[in-house]
């Protein structure tokens, strides 16, 4: 991957312009001058312009990921804001929201401004999510108002579910005056117990403690009901079970303030794939069975699930190269995301490319209240160009994260990111 400052004038020629807002896909040219879009479609080519012939490629909004872990501060051996940005660019992402479970956690206006300051020079837009509770301890709500003033876009204790229903209720109520979503990692810790993988016939065979689906869905159900009585915005992260999808669908029919995301890995793998105790597949919530996987896909197709989020969770080799019980939860996901969801949802299922792009662009931006109409003259260029037809094998050389904990190596993916334009930079991805 090569990242350069955008030339003064740059034109993408003969490109398929896929506008997920206007819902159009037309061939044409796109001119960027000083990092802004100045012409779209058919127009007279200016002088002194650098041209990229983008024949066969699709140009659309840069992707937006509501769920990444960039590990800074505290675990810079796993990822930094800088290295995470490179991983994002390689995956076509121009905007991400970082989870606050760093060390120390991002639970104060000072720590929010630390992330804002440190990410200023990064080549993508990084929005910090603040902790719902102080120290992510699940007891006292944090200074959400002050954090929002400093730039927090949402609140979450991700990784640590808010077990206490009263704390969750009070946090939701409090957030209504701020108008930002609460994102609760839904998992009842008592039902999860010491669960390490999905509870089912595979966990029984492997002798690994199971984490039952209901540990998630029971808390999703609680959160949905609390959202209803409080009127707060609730975003359900990394939905993994069929029952959760069912509850979300039901509640969405009467409450417009609920949104939900699914990760690429929950759409791709099933618990049978853990037969070899592969620690790269150890993740929270766990990889479920095929019934849940299919329910997630249907949830996307019928619109119950709003967006794709990677839950990019870098870990060092020694965190993963150990016995299954001790291995860390999580996997990286930014670089492989598009190729996976294009394959699973468009190639194997009936989703249109336009709807897939919406799941990665307009939908997540709407949830966070970001500007989502990006293919307009005068807008700062935040774009991705991909080849929708290229099949490629995901390998370590495709990874730009500081960590390499991915279970996708050797998998054939469909659709490849070629260029990402973000914050005045253009990255060419090989």
């Amino acid at each position, binding site marked *: 991957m090569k990242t350069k400052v955008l030339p003064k004038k740059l034109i993408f020629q003969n490109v398929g312009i896929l506008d997920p807002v206007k819902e159009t896909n037309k061939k044409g040219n796109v001119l960027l001058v000083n990092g802004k879009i100045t012409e779209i479609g058919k127009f007279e080519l200016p002088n002194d312009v650098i041209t990229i012939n983008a024949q066969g490629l699709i140009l659309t909004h840069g992707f937006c990921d509501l769920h990444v872990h960039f590990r800074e501060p505290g675990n810079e051996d796993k990822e930094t804001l800088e290295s995470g940005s490179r991983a994002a660019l390689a995956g076509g992402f121009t905007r991400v929201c970082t989870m606050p479970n760093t060390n120390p956690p991002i639970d104060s206006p000072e720590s929010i401004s630390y992330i804002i300051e440190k990410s200023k020079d990064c080549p993508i837009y990084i929005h910090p999510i603040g902790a719902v509770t102080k120290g992510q301890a699940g007891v006292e709500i944090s200074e959400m108002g002050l954090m929002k003033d400093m730039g927090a876009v949402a609140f979450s204790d991700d990784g640590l579910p808010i077990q206490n229903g009263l704390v969750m209720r009070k946090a939701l109520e409090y957030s209504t005056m701020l108008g930002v979503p609460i994102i609760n990692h839904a998992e009842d810790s008592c039902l999860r117990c010491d669960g390490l993988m999905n509870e089912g016939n595979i*966990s*029984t065979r492997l002798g690994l403690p199971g984490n039952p689906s209901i540990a998630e869905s029971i808390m999703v159900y609680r959160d949905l009901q609390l959202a209803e009585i409080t009127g707060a915005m609730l975003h359900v992260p990394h939905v993994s079970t069929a029952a959760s999808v069912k509850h979300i669908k039901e509640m969405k029919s009467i409450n417009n303030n609920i949104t939900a995301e699914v990760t690429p890995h929950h759409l791709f793998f099933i618990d049978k794939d853990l037969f*070899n105790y592969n620690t790269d597949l150890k993740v929270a919530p766990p990889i479920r069975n095929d019934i849940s996987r299919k329910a997630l896909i249907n949830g996307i197709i019928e619109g119950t699930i709003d967006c794709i989020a990677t839950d990019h969770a870098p870990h060092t080799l020694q965190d993963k190269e150990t016995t299954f*019980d001790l291995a860390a939860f999580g996997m990286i996901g930014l670089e492989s995301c598009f190729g996976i969801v294009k394959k699973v949802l468009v190639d194997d299922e009936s989703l249109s490319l336009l709807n897939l792009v919406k799941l990665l662009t307009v939908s997540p931006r709407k949830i966070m209240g970001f500007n989502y109409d990006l293919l307009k003259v005068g807008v700062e260029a935040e774009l991705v160009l991909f080849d929708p037809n290229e099949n490629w094998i995901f390998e370590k050389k495709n990874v730009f994260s500081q960590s390499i904990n991915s279970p996708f190596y050797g998998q054939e993916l469909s659709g490849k990111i070629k260029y990402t334009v973000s914050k005045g930079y253009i990255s060419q991805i090989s």
Partner: protein
Amino acid sequence: MLTHKHLLGLENFPKEDIQKIIDTAFNFREVLDRPIKKVPSLQGITVVNLFFENSTRTRISFELAQKRLSADTVNFSASTSSLKKGESFKDTAQNIEAMKIDAVVLRHPAPGAPKHLTEFIDAKIINAGDGTHEHPTQAILDMMSLQEKFGEIKDLNVAIVGDIEHSRVARSNIYGLVKMGANVTLCGPPNLIPNTIVELGVGVNYNIDEVVEWADAINVLRIQKERMGIGLIPSEREYRKLFGITEERIKRNDKEIVIMHPGPMNRGVEIDSGVADSEQAIILDQVLNGVASRMSVLYLLLGTKDGDMK
């Protein structure tokens, strides 16, 4: 010798190899009855007993098997190791590998640890119990004991009674017995029998009296005291009443039911002393067969050629 390089578990271990191990174990059993109980089969072979979890009988059984085969053995247990200094499992294993050993007998609390070990060392690996996953040599010695008693395992009605969910002995026995053609029924509290276990080809019956009436042999599992008090088993007396192999239950049936137990026993809880010490209990035969079975496994994985066991 065997089609597999390691003995990680019985789930994916071929029936023919299991039968070969049992048949060879009977030959070694004969060695154990000699005045000089030693053969030179594994002379010059070095085996490490790598025990990351407390064990007395399994470790002694393996060590005896190695000594009877004239192998050189080294014992390594977690309490005396560098694990306490924070060294990773991988580093410990690679260090041992660097000392040029031929085989590792591994006992580890983590399910999958033996499989994990094969990823970074070349020695042959024998699983001596990995958490709640498998304990293949225990199942082999149990099957050998059944074959000794009944002549054949096929079509036997074998009950396994106890905490199935947390039992590696149960899992390995299920895989082995189902492969060998036995009928297997599990019995125990419903909250300790995963409902997906029937997919392994076994039946489940929570009524111990029906199970006793049905069974030719009962493998009684040890009830772990640490399972008490966390909502799994209310009390010892209730367990004994509902699932205990009591003298009264055994005497109620006319036929002779063979009783097995992997040890150590909680007398008066899962098994009455009168049953454990009765003629029909083959618990001590299991112990002796354990040494013979482990000799057979070691020999078939590490020996140079067939028939060389003089």
